[in-house]
């Protein structure tokens, strides 16, 4: 059944249909409607879950960790300062190999105080061991929550589903909500193999001496690597059941004969489709890859899509201060080891920080600049800075 839903409610419906059992969350703009709707669903009995009110995001994640450790399917949602307050426990959730799913509404970090979108909150959680999915539509948000549980519970790592503040979170559009029965077939009840059991008490997260720590981290990285194939498989299964897929980790859009490939993520990728379409009509050989997953990083997909291309332009709605756009740096890094003749120059653009609108004009400007220049003159090419 198709419903007109705001992005935040698409998140809530995703959690509802995934039959989450425990929700612990703390409200924050622009995430509020996610938890408002979920608490309403719990109160109405539509969702048979325990909703735990907490006093901070740190506590929310702590409660999720405990609930997941007890074997319950667990959900939370947050944004920006809420996510960064969780930081310590994000490491814990991943290190303890708990398949928690969380929605993060991308919102800029203060100061200056901002409630608008950029990706610095989630990308600064890069090394916590969470998988990250960046969505471009409310439908993808909804579908990704359900997929996320299946992936997380298979590889035993937590997943963060990320959506842009306002551009998705507060935007209404049609979302196809499948029948619960169908979702139940796709996503069976969680049977977490290492759960707390009072009849067989074990200690969790206790002292791990240097003899073994390295091995556990090795296994965690292996799980991330394994996730690559699981993501693709789950996306295919999803398509078979629901008729929708997102290309697994990366979606290539009109790249087959493209000379210039744009790399984008989130809603920027959505708007960029239009621009690519227009430029193609104008005879420009341009394509796009949409970075759906940031972790695990889709190394092979990126290499395959970009090698031998004439130019690559990366749009980053984020910045790692002292270096550059985060997606751009990772893309440059995975291209480094390919044959020099096949390695395209990578133009790194930073735009749209703090919710500055990224319009078709912005994207056109980026593409024209890339077409005009042979090589990037600077590590970062800033778009829209008022000089």
């Amino acid at each position, binding site marked *: 059944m198709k419903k007109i839903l705001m992005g935040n409610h698409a998140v809530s419906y995703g959690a509802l249909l995934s039959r989450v059992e425990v929700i612990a969350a703390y409200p924050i703009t622009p995430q509020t409607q996610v938890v408002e709707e979920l608490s309403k669903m719990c109160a109405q009995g539509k969702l048979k879950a325990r909703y735990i009110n907490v006093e901070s995001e740190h506590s929310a994640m702590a409660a999720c960790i405990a609930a997941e450790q007890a074997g319950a399917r667990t959900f939370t949602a947050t944004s920006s300062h809420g996510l960064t307050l969780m930081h310590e426990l994000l490491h814990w959730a991943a*290190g303890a190999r708990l398949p928690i799913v969380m929605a993060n509404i991308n919102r800029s970090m203060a100061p200056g105080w901002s409630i608008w979108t950029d990706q610095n909150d989630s990308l600064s959680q890069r090394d916590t061991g969470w998988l990250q999915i960046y969505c471009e539509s409310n439908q993808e948000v909804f579908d990704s929550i359900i997929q996320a549980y299946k992936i997380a519970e298979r590889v*035993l790592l937590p997943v963060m589903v990320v959506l842009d503040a306002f551009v998705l979170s507060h935007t209404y559009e049609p979302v196809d909500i499948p029948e619960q029965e169908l979702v139940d077939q796709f996503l069976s009840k969680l049977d977490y193999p*290492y759960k707390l059991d009072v009849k067989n008490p*074990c200690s*969790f997260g206790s002292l791990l001496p240097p003899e073994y720590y390295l*091995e*556990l981290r090795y296994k965690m990285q292996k799980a991330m690597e394994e996730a690559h194939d699981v993501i693709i498989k789950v996306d295919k299964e999803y398509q078979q059941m629901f008729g929708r897929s997102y290309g697994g980790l990366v979606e290539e859009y009109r790249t087959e004969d493209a000379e210039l490939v744009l790399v984008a993520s989130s809603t920027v990728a959505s708007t960029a489709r239009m621009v690519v379409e227009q430029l193609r009509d104008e005879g420009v050989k341009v394509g796009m890859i949409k970075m759906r997953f940031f972790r695990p990083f889709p190394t092979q997909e990126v290499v395959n899509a970009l090698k031998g291309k004439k130019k690559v332009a990366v749009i980053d709605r984020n910045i790692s201060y002292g270096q550059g756009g985060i997606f751009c740096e990772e893309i440059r890094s995975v291209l480094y080891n390919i044959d020099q003749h096949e390695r395209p120059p990578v133009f790194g653009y930073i735009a749209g920080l703090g919710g500055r609108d990224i319009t078709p004009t912005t994207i056109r400007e980026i593409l024209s600049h890339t077409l005009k220049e042979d090589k990037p003159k600077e590590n970062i090419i800033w778009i829209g800075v008022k000089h």
Partner: protein
Amino acid sequence: MKEKDEDEIKVVIYRSEKEMPPVPMSVANTLYNKTGTWKYVQPIYQNRTPPCNAGCPAGEDIEGWLSLVGKGDFLEALQLLLSENPFPAICGRICYHPCEKACNRGKFDQPLSINSAERFLGDYGIKEGAPILTSTERKKERIAIIGSGPAGLTSAYHLANMGYYITIFEASSQLGGSLIKKYSPERLPVEVVEAEIERITKRGIKVRVGTKVGDDISLESLQREYQAILLATGDQKSKILKADKEKAVLSGLEFLEATGVKWGVKLEGGIAIVGERDIPEKEVRSTPRIMTDPMGATHEKGVFACGDITFIPRAINHEVGSGKRAAMAIDSYLKGEDIKKKLELVKVGEGESVSMRSYITGAVKWVNKVVSFDELNLDYFEEKPRFLNPEMFAEGAIIKDEIAVQEAERCFHCGVCTQCDNCYIYCPDLAISRRKDSKGYRINYDYCKGCLICVHECPRNAMSYEGVVK
């Protein structure tokens, strides 16, 4: 896991990451690791004697009834109080309350206002009509009690509660003895005395006033008719003082001769003698007395004594205590049991305080070690001055229930577990659990490694410790 398996568990050494679980968790059930073997001291979860209780010569469970007052259960509190002492309204007025001197809170801010709380509860009992505990069991033995002062009445009360047939012989025309004669009506109104005596005599006790044993009826005839006799004739001094000093002594002798109790020089065991004696309380003057054993037995078989005629300080609380001890002695005698063997069971503290409840039930509420101030964890208490004071009982003043509740809430409950959960919460080894029957906690000594955090965090020393012999 079976014990056999536990012994077989060894330290696991992984040779490769493939053997390891992906999760940082213990490889085996953690129950195998019996950390209890590490300890050289261990906590003991047991209630200990509150100092107020040990300090009450009448043997009241003060902490117990204060706890019930604190919950607003006045009727239950009163029942508990009455199970030891039939005179709360009287004691609440005239007792010199050594309990308050013993109260640990006195070293913190102000002692609990125990005496005033007792008066509140006693008056509540008179006003509301306290429940009468009638024994379902009727015994065949008959007991004569000579004298109806506080000691005699206390004995009569407890023995009647046990189911004995009681007859009180009172020489004067009125019950009460010193309660009638000794106090001004402002301090102890007659109605209060009458109400509390009536509550006792209502228990099917026969009363023969104006009957002087020796004159109107002989002791021998009583001995034929009754299986036990209790002398509770009180301090005869007021009468004797009218005579000269030498005669005063004789008067005592005459009394004893008249009653037929043998007296003389000290003999082994329980002996009745007459004479002047020094007694601990200076202000209480000595007078002719009967020597008994600590429980009130004279050397004459079947004859007991209690109250001011024995060697006790002359104060209501000591008189009640004396009457209680005699009641226990008579009951044991009639059952052919040795009261001395029960003494350790019924003693509260190291003084004269005894517990009738322990005597009746054969169970103790505490291990008999009094909790000292130093053994409390004062971090858990806030300074709070008294809510209730003796001055508040000005004529006609009504003490609100909340005041009594607030005052009772000040109680530290020294030595008595209030199930605050501190031990349960703080135990780092999860070795302390709540009992399923809600009666406190259980310590699993297999895993208690003797860190004594529970002992430290128990505000009231209901958790204490002892050494372990390995």
